[in-house]
């Protein structure tokens, strides 16, 4: 029953999600990619160890930060209220800042 419910939900989701625009889908896939990268890093930390802890933290937080920033970007253009170019410019500055801080911390 649980599997059946899940299948039904997934079917509906795929149907409704297909209605979103291509750009939003690309952005969404980047969010998922960033989260997946962060998960890979956390798995590495669990298995191999966290020895240069600052490097481990910097890389994981950078991936998570990228995911969150992209999700924020998606939230703002998905609503359709602000101009995409302006939001994208803010997004670029925020990403550059995040990557700059991460690189300076990764040592």
């Amino acid at each position, binding site marked *: 029953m*649980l599997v059946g*419910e*899940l299948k*039904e*939900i997934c079917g*509906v*989701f795929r149907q*409704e*999600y297909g209605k*979103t625009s291509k750009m939003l889908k690309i952005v969404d896939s980047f969010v998922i990619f960033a989260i997946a990268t962060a998960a890979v890093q956390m798995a590495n930390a669990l298995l191999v160890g966290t020895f240069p*802890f*600052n490097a481990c*933290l*910097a890389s994981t*937080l*950078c991936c*998570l*930060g990228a995911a*969150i*920033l992209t*999700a*924020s*970007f998606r*939230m*703002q253009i998905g*609503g359709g209220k602000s101009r995409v170019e302006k*939001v994208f*410019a*803010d*997004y670029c*500055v*925020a990403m550059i*800042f*995040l990557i700059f*801080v*991460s690189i*300076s*911390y990764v040592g």
Partner: protein
Amino acid sequence: MGQSRHRPCRTNWHQGRRASTRRPFDPSTGAATMSPAAAVSSAFAPWGVAGKMTDKDVARWVERAALGMIMAVAFAIRLFSIVKYESVIHEFDPYFNYRVTKFASEKGMAEFWNFFDDRTWYPLGRVVGGTIYPGLTLTATWIYWFITDVLKLHPVSVKDVCVMIGPIFSALTALSTYGLVNEVRGKGAGLMAACLIATIPSYISRSVAGSYDNEAVAIFALVVTFYLYVKSMKTGSLLWGVGASLAYFYMVSSWGGYTFIINLIPIHALAMIVTNNFSANLYVAYSQFILNGTLLALVLPVVGFNAVQTSEHFSGFFVLGLMNAVALVKFLRSNLTERAFQKAFRLFVTLAVVGAGVAVLGVITYAMTSPTFRWSGRSLSLLDPTYAKKYIPIIASVSEHQAPTWSSFMNDLRLAIVFMGAGIMSCFKPRLTGASLFLVIWGVTSVYFSGVMVRLMLVLAPVACCLTGIAISDVLDLLCRSYRYEKTSSPGDDNGVSSSPGAGKGGKKKGRAGRRGSEDAADGTPYGLVPGQLAFFGIAGLVVVLSFHLFHCSYLGGEGYSSPSIILQSRTSTGDVYVFDDYREAYSWLRENTDYDAKVASWWDYGYQTTAMADRTVLVDNNTWNNTHIATVGRAMASPEKKAWEIFRALDVDYVFVVFGGMVGYSSDDINKFLWMVRIGGGEYPDIVEKDYIGEGYYRIDEKASPTMLNTLMYKLSYHRFQDIVGRDGMDRVRNTRFGKPDIQLKYFEEAFTSQHWMLRVYKVLDKPARSKTGVPKSSLKN
């Protein structure tokens, strides 16, 4: 408030009566809608775009002039100490900051980060580069370099820059408070709040010229962080979020009180989620702030891995997870049909509850099992005010950590504490927005913490000023509108009802032009206005009240909070000022007359001053990071002379000094602090028992003092040769009793120097006991 009637939209009382089509400075439409270049250019064009001075331009220039005057007053009111005393660094902690700043300005940044101080905590030393909050010292260093290298203004010394940091940054705090309250309510409230924080005595006390301590820049960083965070929350812009993260970075680098921010913002976000106010803007602002903030806090050596490992930071991550879950649910909802969403939601909730339960369990076991990852002692003593007294006497002994009395609330906050409740109520009208909810939560939590420790009154001061500014601005708005309505008194001219939208949610609600609800008076007067004459007297009364508040603030700033505590003043019988400069006299004696490598022992209060002014190695100082070392010194002071001598010789001490106020009536001397030495020493060494030192009935130093007390080193060093000045039956002016044991003779110590008013007494630790008892009177040398 159960009726569904419309309140008239409150207009900002600067903006005139008519709604204008262009509103470049209207905070509710959000400055983010203008490009930065246009905003800057229109800010400085005196005639606006229209080409002539309109009401709006006059208002804009009045506002700017007011802001300029507020900043000037904030700067000037803190200069009393320079006028009354001199341009000198105050108190104790600032001397350490000054020493580090001097070091950084001479040796450069690389040396600063690697600074290991071997002149203190002998023989342990102290890692300064990795354990101080560098914000204050680096700010002063860079300002000093800018002034001497770029502006080439000589002679400006590091001390001058350090002394002036407080006034400069309090002017900037006033500016940021204006910005913050402008975001919440409007320009009038912003100006009122800025004026209040510029002059409030609680903030003056920690940022007076010469008080070179972390709070001088930290309060500025606090308000700026909150301003930028509220701005990013209102506009939902990632750019403002970057600004907020940078401001938070500056805050983390300036003060340990940054944990207040990193817990307040998650509490506020949680409140927004719980009250069903979750929006994209909140997610954008909060998640970026927490992530960037964590990454930036990790960069600083003083915080380091604590930013992800100590319990004080966990609330941010917890709420971040919660917020992501809520965002995910909303995303699912927008991509599923209703039925499917219900099913998915149930599944998700079960999964989430199970997952969250496991995670919380994991976090709790992790925090409980590792002793260093629980809450730190200071944080625990905030949550449970009795914790420090039971477990950590050294935290309990600091005078700033005592609970404040009502009189200190009234003294330090005066008007702000009275109107603060009205401000909180004002935040709920016309509607509680994210920004006003932030102020309310900040206010309530600050009130709790300020009730725990008197030094945290400083965290209450900015929010009390903001809320008071809102309350007074609302009252003034109503009164001014009533007065103007009376003056124009044409029924069709409903000033306050039309024009700008309500504060808070930017521009979404249009002004309700000309609508008259059922609550208006019979003759058409809009709801809530009072008669004109009443309004006039109301305004006059409010002006009088505010003036008295300002008189009080400047009096307190001048008389109460500007003393440097290293110089004391009193009035002679003819009214002249008499200066007691004993501290500096003794420190310069030490600097001139002892070896460079001599070790000096004293109670920890004077450690920073000794290393900075006397430039000698000390055993313990105000950093109090090593309780055992302080307990050793306390034990030595509380032991008989021979035992103390052995302890000091084991630590290579050459000189011991005590502070003694008995001759002039200076009550912050070491005999008054002695019971704390006993308590702290007794915390580590069980042979020191407090009740042994209590005489008959209470702690006393006359004949009825306990024999243990009369034998301690502290007693002997304080009262040695005191009978030469006051006679055998003389009185100790602080305790107001005769002292218990004249004819004190020292065998292991030798008097080296006593300052002019006997306030600081320096003794040399002899290598071998003296052959003859050193009771021969020496003249008190003043080199």
